[in-house]
């Protein structure tokens, strides 16, 4: 008996998979006409294939409590959904919000008793009622803050000038720093915050 070509077994499987070329199929049929062994081999394979095709899933019941067991084995979530979640995504915004709330709380409580007149302490300043005057020949070194009063600058101020709820009068004024005039609560808050932030950043 002639030995069967090795490729014939491959052809048989390709045939079962519906994956065979016409040429190979012809070769296979030609060979099998005269080869009992290969005929039997093919019959057995076809039988197996039929059995496999019909041996679909057995019905297997999923064990009770399967889902709950999986859920209890999951690692604890790192974050919760809904409220309170957004701030994890925007830490900068969250920091700003907290900063704003705390600043307003402390500053607004300070606002109530700031209705009275006050001025940065400096011996060179002339104070008449609620009007502060920087005399003609005087030079104020450092920042000058006037609350609930007016400021008249005749001399020099080497620093920033801030007037809260008051007027600023200066004809020949000579202020080296910035001049800020603040009238309302919100602006005062804003100013304080800017000032606070400035201090924080210059310290660092």
């Amino acid at each position, binding site marked *: 008996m002639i030995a069967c070509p090795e490729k014939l077994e491959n052809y048989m*499987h390709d045939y079962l998979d519906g994956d065979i070329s016409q040429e190979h199929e012809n070769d296979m049929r030609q060979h099998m006409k005269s080869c009992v062994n290969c005929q039997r081999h093919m019959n057995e394979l076809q039988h197996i294939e039929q059995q496999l095709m*019909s041996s679909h*899933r*057995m019905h297997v019941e*999923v064990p009770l409590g*399967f889902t709950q067991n999986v859920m209890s084995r999951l690692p604890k979530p790192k974050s919760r*959904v809904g409220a309170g*979640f957004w701030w994890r995504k925007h830490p900068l915004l969250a920091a700003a919000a907290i900063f704003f709330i705390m600043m307003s709380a402390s500053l607004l409580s300070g606002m109530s008793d700031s209705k009275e007149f006050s001025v940065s302490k400096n011996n060179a300043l002339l104070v008449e009622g609620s009007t502060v005057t920087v005399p003609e020949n005087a030079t104020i070194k450092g920042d000058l803050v006037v609350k609930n009063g007016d400021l008249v600058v005749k001399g020099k101020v080497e620093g920033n000038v801030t007037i809260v709820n008051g007027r600023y009068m200066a004809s020949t004024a000579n202020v080296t720093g910035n001049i800020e005039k603040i009238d309302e609560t919100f602006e005062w808050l804003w100013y304080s915050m800017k000032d606070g932030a400035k201090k924080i950043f210059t310290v660092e």
Partner: protein
Amino acid sequence: MDTLIHKRIKQVLKGDQNAYSDIVKSYQQSLYHVCYRILGNQQEAEDVAQEAFVRAYINLHTFDPKRKFSTWLYRIATNLCIDRLRKKKPDYYLDAEVPGTEGLNMYSQVAIEERLPEEEVERMELKDRIHYEINRLPEKYRTVVILKYIEELPLQEISDILDIPLGTVKTRVHRGREALRKQLGDV
């Protein structure tokens, strides 16, 4: 179903852990089944299928939503099953090919599960016999045979699940069929 699953995946990724239970419910039957078929043991199948779901949850952020979720899930599960099988048996000699048999190794000579007495095997109904013989196939053929015939998955999907080339899947189907033919010779 895929749209619903993708919606649930998004919810889980946003931190809604409870949405994951819907995903588990949708796939537990098929995942448990395939684990049971590969491992041949209910207790182990339950353990491995649960582990697969937990791993899928932990790695959900790596899932590519353009691909099929079930394929990804099956891949995790089959990998776990195969690891489990390899740990169960020392494979230093089992992997050696048996001389004179192409692609067959000692696995095919050694029963994966307890081998039944010959008389009992002969008394089996044919469909039980097929399952029994599939369980005795070497692991790499068994996995492919189970996915193709029992889970009825297309060859391309099997190739994706097992992360092996399509040609290798076909070869394993062929070898698996040959091995079954030898095992079932008398039926």
